[in-house]
């Protein structure tokens, strides 16, 4: 097992394309780190530099205690895994797991030992002599995992290993991979464009955009405290709702005016974000997660100054919650990041007509809102997210 360190790492291709800029990222020994971001953000390039498949243009890449910039792939003790899930139908489970080791002319005893250890971990010991057709779906997936385990590298590298699988198998394999990697405790770097995978699988996630690292932290940390609008909207489903508003200090607290609505901002918000005080009298970008809003009619008279008004456009009753899509009067937040994300998920999802924005809230299941209703939305103002409207950076 080994740590992996990027120290001011750069990658520039021959055609001049600058794929990775000044990457500084430490992956601890035994950590499961997920590199996530949209297509072209540099995450696969970063992974391939660890593997030695791409040269490092600048900076230092360290695996364990060795600088590996010039070290060929075969000498790095890493394994790119999950190129193929195909199980060979005439080979036994044992042979399916270990055929790669035979190719490398490993001694038979060592192969047998590795098979045994992998099978024990994967609960396949009783099935080693069986053929794949005799296994359940879950067991077949674990055989595919076994191929990676028997290689016993210091670092596992996985480049979008689930992207070619159907949705159901993807969910199953996600769970299998997480479980096995944690049992092994092997340092793992996993690349995905899917933020759900990033949130559910890794100890930490590192969000990249256009070759730059945006933020690294635990999934909950990144979700709760995004560094900027890009991270705020990329992480989380549905994406964070955004709107522009005018902030005005009043005593210890403030008011936030969004279109025709005014929210009271308590002093606690400024205590937690001292930088917000500099924005009095200015327009800010405000974000709200869907779960931080609810049907105001269920709140009685509580928090009368934390209400917004909208028009319901779609209601999705999911049993445990009701997902409500509504139009809100207010000014859109438009940055390069919001446009990029609109492209990723479909522009109609987050852009509304001029003067309105399209928001999504999760209401309690007992809400009775219907499509077309004028709805009052209670907002947990203390859980709002605050961003500079020009730079998109979080205000802290």
């Amino acid at each position, binding site marked *: 097992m080994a740590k992996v360190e990027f120290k001011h790492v750069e990658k520039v291709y021959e055609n001049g394309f600058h794929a990775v800029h000044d990457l500084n990222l430490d992956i601890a020994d035994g950590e499961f780190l997920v590199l996530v971001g949209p297509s072209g953000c540099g995450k696969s390039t970063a992974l391939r530099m660890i593997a030695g498949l791409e040269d490092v243009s600048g900076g230092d890449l360290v695996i364990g205690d060795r600088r590996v910039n010039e070290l060929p792939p075969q000498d790095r003790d890493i394994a790119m895994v999950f*190129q193929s899930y195909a199980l060979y139908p005439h*080979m036994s489970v044992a042979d399916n797991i270990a055929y790669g080791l035979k*190719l490398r002319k490993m001694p038979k005893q060592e192969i047998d030992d590795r098979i045994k250890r992998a099978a024990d971990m994967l609960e396949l010991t009783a099935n080693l002599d069986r053929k794949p057709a005799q296994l359940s779906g879950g067991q077949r997936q674990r055989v595919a995992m076994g191929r990676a385990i028997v290689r016993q590298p210091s670092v596992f590298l996985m480049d979008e290993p689930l992207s070619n699988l159907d949705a159901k198998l993807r969910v199953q394999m996600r769970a299998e991979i997480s479980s096995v990697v944690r049992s092994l405790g092997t340092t793992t770097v996993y690349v995905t464009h899917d933020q759900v995978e990033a949130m559910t699988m890794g100890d930490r996630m590192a969000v990249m955009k256009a070759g730059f690292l945006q933020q690294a932290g635990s999934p909950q940390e990144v979700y709760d405290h995004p560094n900027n609008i890009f991270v705020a909207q990329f992480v989380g489903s549905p994406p964070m709702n955004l709107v522009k508003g005018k902030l005005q200090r009043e005593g210890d607290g403030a008011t936030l005016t969004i279109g025709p609505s005014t929210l009271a901002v308590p002093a606690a918000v400024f205590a937690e974000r001292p930088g917000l005080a500099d924005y009095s009298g200015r327009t800010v970008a405000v974000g709200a997660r869907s779960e931080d809003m609810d049907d105001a009619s269920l709140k009685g008279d509580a928090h009368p100054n934390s209400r917004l008004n909208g028009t319901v456009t779609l209601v999705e009753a999911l049993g445990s919650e009701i997902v409500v899509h509504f139009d809100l009067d207010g000014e859109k937040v438009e940055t390069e990041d919001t446009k990029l994300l609109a492209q990723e998920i479909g522009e109609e999802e987050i852009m509304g007509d001029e003067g309105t924005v399209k928001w999504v809230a999760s209401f309690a299941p007992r809400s009775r809102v219907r499509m077309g209703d004028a709805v009052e939305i209670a907002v947990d103002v203390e859980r709002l997210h605050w961003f500079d409207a020009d730079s998109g950076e979080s205000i802290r």
Partner: protein
Amino acid sequence: MALKITGSLDGKDLVFLPWSTPLEEWPAEYVVALPRGISRHVVRFTRIGNKVFAVKEIGAQLADHEYALLRRLRKRGVPCVKQIGVVHGREDADGNPLDSVLITRHLQFSLPYRAVFSGPLREDTLNRLVDALVLLLVRLHLVGFVWKDCSLSNTLFRRDAGDFAAYLVDAETGEMHDSIGAGLRGYDIETAMTNIAGELMDLQAGGKLPEHLDPVEIALDLPPRYERLWNLLNRPVSVSREDRHELDSHIRKLNELGFDIAELQVDGSSDAGKVRMRAQVVDPGHHSRRLMRLTGLDVGENQARRLLNDIDSYRAGQMAQGNASARDEQVCAHRWLTEVFEPVAAAVPESLAGKLEPAEIYHEVMEHRWFLSERLGHDAGQEAALVSYLEDVLSNKPDEQAVLGSRSGRVSDETQEIRLVLPPSSQ
């Protein structure tokens, strides 16, 4: 969501296939029983008229990605299956969404690896198969394509004047770049080696691999073969200013492999009296393009080379007889086509026409004529060779054509959207 079919005009009849049924459950009347490789997705073959198509159930984004990649590869002259269309918006009878589908044209006269490797297999045939796969990988890398899942299951083989040509079948894991470095090429080779070892071990486990073949040794031979070919294509050649023979030999060797030389880059003087030159290899297909220009025949690269040699011999014979029109290469090639090639193709009875494609039959007739002539000590003659070949050789071969049909006619490569908006209940 409305069913949406995007594709070339060749696929217009595909609109009537049972898109609201999962592929695994397609009724037998829509399915052609052809051998399939190991695939992570459901794949079926279906016939429309005299054409066979491969239908693969796959996620929507992947379907579009693979369609676009195959299109780009074909435009770059890389041998691969032809993309026909993508079907999105499928739903079953209950309105539940089904995966999208990628449709490709089945490659006629192609052989999946299980068919090739599990029959009687001589060592030189094995060498040619591995060489074909290596050549395909090199051609892919030259155009900037990283496969990331090169395997025998993702490849089809077709006979090509006694050799084999390999065709890429599955591009879903692939990426296209301006160029790729040694690291990514190495990764592709490593993946190919591992996959091929597994596939051959599986054949062995099923008792289908000839006993004298060792899957590990075959797989391990792949990287050095690749490196040899890659170096041949990319290494600089030192040439004496007085002696061009080495350069001529080098270029000839590259041509024989089917590669053109676009330009020679002078890297600057190295040793005294020598100039370092590097052949820049561009799109292959040198011989097949020349043959197409001269005769309109569309055949594999090795077949084209063989036929061009035959045209050259024919032309030499005509000129020796004092035939003035033989000086014109185009005119002579046309005469060869009508007086030599087409009579051979026409002489094959319909019952045997499915055995091999016409250019391959012609090649084998020429080979057979040579062997007969060697045995007799004099030229056996075309007619006698043809009769003997049909009776003693072709009639004993298995069919390699998937369906009766021909490769005539050019299909438009233009993609257009055929928007078929049907209410879900009428799919």
